[in-house]
């Protein structure tokens, strides 16, 4: 049987495709590459690479230890490159996240709460970041997380810098 080779991307090695216009504007396709975006980001910047009204997907460069954040709803972290430790904390006071919060809010220091556990993730691993909990990322070496969430405090939109024009 033929042996196939599956190609993934990484911060160190990625190759972009692109939009070839026939009768259109390439900006309509909002075309970017997660690894390219993360390679130019500061650690834990939440850079939107997709947006569908209030919903976003964010490319996050994981490097060192992030701040603690608490979401107003479930979020999902998909590791695209590297190894990322995800620490979860059940908040003693969930009301630090105002009702109706979209996306997540940054918390000062380590929040008061009970440790829920730790998930050590590698490429392809998806972790639930549950509402009512806070989370913190840690990566010894640069990695990339793709976050499924809602645009909120901390979401960065710089489409003109990241997209094909």
């Amino acid at each position, binding site marked *: 049987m033929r042996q196939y080779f599956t190609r993934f991307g990484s911060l160190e090695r990625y190759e972009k495709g692109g939009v070839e216009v026939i009768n259109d504007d390439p900006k309509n396709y*909002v075309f*970017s590459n997660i690894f390219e975006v993360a390679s130019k980001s500061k650690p834990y910047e939440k850079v939107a690479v997709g947006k*569908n009204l209030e919903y976003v997907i964010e490319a996050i460069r994981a490097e060192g230890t992030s701040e603690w954040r608490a979401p107003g709803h*479930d979020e999902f972290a998909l590791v695209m490159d590297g190894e990322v430790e995800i620490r979860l904390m059940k908040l003693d006071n969930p009301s630090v996240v105002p009702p109706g919060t979209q996306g997540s809010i940054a918390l000062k220091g380590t929040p008061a709460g009970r440790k829920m556990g730790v998930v050590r993730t590698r490429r392809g691993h*998806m972790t639930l970041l549950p509402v009512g909990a806070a989370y913190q990322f840690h990566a010894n070496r640069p990695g990339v997380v793709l976050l499924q969430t809602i645009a909120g405090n901390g979401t960065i939109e710089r489409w003109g810098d990241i997209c094909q024009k």
Partner: protein
Amino acid sequence: MTAHTLPEIGTIEPNQHGYRSFSLGKFAFARDEYFAYIQWPKGHHLMPVDAFLRALQRDIAWGFFYGTVNFDAVIGTLNHYGTVDLFAGRYNAHYRKAGLDYVETFKTPLIQRVFEAMLDDWTNATFDPFASPAETGSAFGPKNGHNKEAITRHRVTARRMVGAPGDEPRRADDNGFPVNRGFVDVPQDEPDVKPEPGFEDEVVAFNLLAYLSRSDVTWNPSVVSVCKNSLYCPTTEEYILPIIHGNDRVEWFVQLSDEIHWEVEDRETGAARARVTMKPGDVAAMPADIRHRGFAPKRSMLLVWENASPELPALISQGKLPTNPVQF
């Protein structure tokens, strides 16, 4: 022999090739050894039956999906979420100009029932419409049994996330999902999950790429994670998307592995607009006024990201929302 018709379904007696014929409103469907034949009051059309069955399978499995499911440049369906348009030539500029286009609207359960009966009768034991061409036998020839197991697969629709307690299970050898031949090199390691006592059901993670490597179908988006109306619907792709999907809302693609080429056309006329080549890590939007068809030279992993908000089609068609997601 006179063909008798079951109400809303089709003939009882098969034709000389062993297949039943079907009618839906003023549309009529028949097949022989190689082709599916479609008739409507203003015209007729035929498709290779393998292509027809692959498209029919997706249309049924997806509940007529978001927007338009073009079986080819002539035939297809448009979902109104409660009713479905079955059309011929409606989204083909030349058929429209010639006045040969035709549309009829059906309640969803009716068209679903007729399509399911047609798929069941016309799919032989040797053919799996969900499989890549390299992984299935022939759709052609005279009637040769059924493949009900293949055409009635469970559709994955996670309520929160695959692997979460009470939600869709992970895939494994043990539950009938061996690693696909195209993904034997994909690591199968699971995340190292260390919950504190009492939080075993709340600390949840799984290997999405391993999960996808075990998909036994192609071009079949399935929900794996849910953030309100934001749905991650990854899928594995090989060969050609069996339908041309016309968007009624913006849809996003994230290429997780390998490569897919997209042909993008105007949704209404079929006029070519762009080609989009996607490689690992690439992200692209499909605007709400296009239709697209993908080509995957090697089995690949694609994350389809949908916004399932029910009000979107009306807002976009009324011009209250733009057809592209971001202005910059």
